[in-house]
């Protein structure tokens, strides 16, 4: 009689991205058909293809389904308060500019409670990458209305239809001063990955909106309960329009304009800060004084 010993596969070793996953934190909490796994996978492929030093990447997130991402990644990660990820990330980046700082956040996290931090970080052009998983609602708390819920969209707190006009996130990001802005859906994996790579290498504030299926909550109330309904919507209604004015980047049941909308250079905050520091210190030296302060 022969005994066949089947060793349990160690996916952390066998999967090409396994080395980027944190032992003890998998399985994840996301629902079947959730879009966040696709995003996480493309992010990992992006850092892998770029050959970035994983020790120098820091992921910061607030609270929400998407905000669980740093827990699953074998990278430095901070999982902070709802809405404050960008402000925490600002502290991280300014205290150690050598780090690649990436924020993952939901539409509620980044644009409702955290909206102020978003626009100011973009205005300052702080060298960080912000990726928003837009699922049109608050997934984590059970599907309430969000600043991205479409007009008339049904959620647990807009049971008769949403009265509020949703934000166009890419237009908002561009207006606030982001130097790289793109939007993709969960079927645009190849473009998404290339976009993440560009965003990570950008010397400024980069923003990617990722349209993510939430079959469990938004889908349930808006006739997209089956994850495939979302994919069909994305496939049938999205058009790639790189370079168009983000104000015209429509996002509706009839049309999803995706693509890269903004990509230009202006000095980042860290760069300006370093210049300022040099200027201040040179002036101290020239004048032979210890401080400019009047003490």
């Amino acid at each position: 009689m022969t005994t066949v010993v089947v060793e349990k596969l160690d996916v952390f070793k066998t999967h090409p991205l396994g080395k980027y996953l944190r032992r003890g934190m998998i399985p994840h909490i996301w629902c079947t058909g959730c879009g966040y796994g696709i995003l996480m996978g493309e992010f990992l492929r992006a850092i892998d293809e770029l050959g970035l030093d994983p020790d120098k990447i820091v992921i910061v997130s607030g609270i929400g389904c998407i905000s669980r991402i740093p827990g699953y990644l074998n990278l430095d990660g901070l999982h902070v308060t709802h809405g404050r990820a960008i402000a925490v990330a600002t502290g991280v980046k300014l205290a150690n500019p050598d780090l690649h700082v990436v924020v993952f956040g939901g539409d509620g996290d980044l644009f409702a409670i955290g909206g102020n931090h978003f626009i100011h970080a973009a205005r300052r052009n702080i060298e960080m990458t912000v990726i928003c998983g837009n699922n049109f609602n608050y997934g984590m708390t059970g599907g309430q209305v969000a600043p991205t819920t479409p007009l008339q969209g049904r959620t647990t707190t807009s049971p008769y239809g949403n009265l509020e006009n949703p934000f166009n996130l890419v237009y908002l990001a561009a207006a606030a001063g982001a130097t790289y802005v793109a939007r993709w859906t969960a079927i645009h994996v190849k473009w998404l990955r290339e976009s993440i790579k560009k965003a990570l290498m950008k010397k400024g504030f980069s923003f990617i909106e990722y349209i993510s299926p939430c079959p469990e909550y938004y889908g349930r109330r808006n006739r997209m309960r089956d994850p495939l309904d979302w994919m069909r919507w994305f496939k049938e209604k999205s058009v790639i329009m790189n370079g168009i004015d983000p104000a015209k980047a429509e996002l509706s049941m009839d049309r999803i304009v995706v693509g890269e909308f903004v990509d230009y250079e202006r000095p980042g905050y860290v760069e300006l800060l370093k210049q300022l520091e040099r200027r201040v210190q040179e002036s101290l030296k020239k004048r032979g004084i210890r401080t400019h302060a009047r003490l």
Partner: protein
Amino acid sequence: MSEERRDVLTGTYFVIGDVAAAEGAIAAGCRFFAGYPITPSSELAEHMAVRLPEVGGVYIQMEDELGSMAALVGASYAGAKPMTATSGPGFSLMQENIGLAAMLEAPVVVVNVMRGGPSTGQPTKPGQQDVMQAKWGSHGDYEIIALAPSTVQECFDFTIEAFNYAEQYRTPVIVLMDEILGHTREKLVIPEPDQIRVVNRKRPKVPPEEYKPFEPEEDLVPPMAILGEGYRFYATGLTHNEQGFPRTDDPYEQEKLVRRLCDKIRRNKEKIVRVEEYMLEDADVAVIAFGSVARAAKAAVKLARKKGIRAGLLRLKTIWPFPEHIIERLAESVKSFVVAELNYGQIVREVERRVDYRRITFLPKFGEALHTPHEILEGIVRSVRGGKP
């Protein structure tokens, strides 16, 4: 004179408390300031804006105090010794992420130059109304350290001490100043750098594979890895185990974590607490005061002694953890207490937890100005007469 050192400006100066606190921070190694302007703390921020670039540090004016406090947590985890300064309305907004700092055990220092509240209150007038908020301001169980300087010199000294405590215990530390102190110009002596004691957080002693970010040592404080060093750790504001992994449904981990967060300060209380005991050896009546009020209280004690009343002063240099053990001891030797504070009853409640309220004469004041020594003297006289005027 060490003209090379731009961080420790050894010398003698005539400055306001806000500036002294800023210089104390820089001398303690603070190289990161994030804040939002608010009277009467703005001079501190303005001074940091001039000084930090000179010493290779970062000054950033954030969009609000929510963001300021959040930025401090990020900077702390990236290895900086960060600070912010604010007053009542801003202190309220900071509570959210003071709680985060307590949970993530991020060393951070918050200076609250207290003014009159509630709400926008009296921006340019002194107050001591945030005593309880400093301890209980964020939700959940946690302990905190708060210091209360009384002089401009102490604004410098105690801010250094605040950073040392923050680093040693991995906790937010609050410096409770008040408008008078923030704006009073007094002598400040900045010592030679080697005369300044600077404490730095404990670092991991094990390689990354073995590192657990919230595994405490004997003092209940875990060594702290810094982002970007290769430890690849995860820190979450959710209830977590020693590895840092969320354990939101586990009553055992919740109890273990909350107990440790509190006990790392409670158990070290006697090492943390600082008080000044003035003429208490033979006192019949003890005045308890802190901050600017303690100066008037000291003058009142002297006046009382001239009148033949054996009065003394217990000045609180640290407010949290509260020095209950000292109050208890004092309750054995004195007959009565006078508590003077610029509010309608905060420190006095803590004293009442240890001393029968009938032995306490409470002197509230609402903050348009300090108590005068005579007002406190009157309280002392009333106190020795058993509360009768």
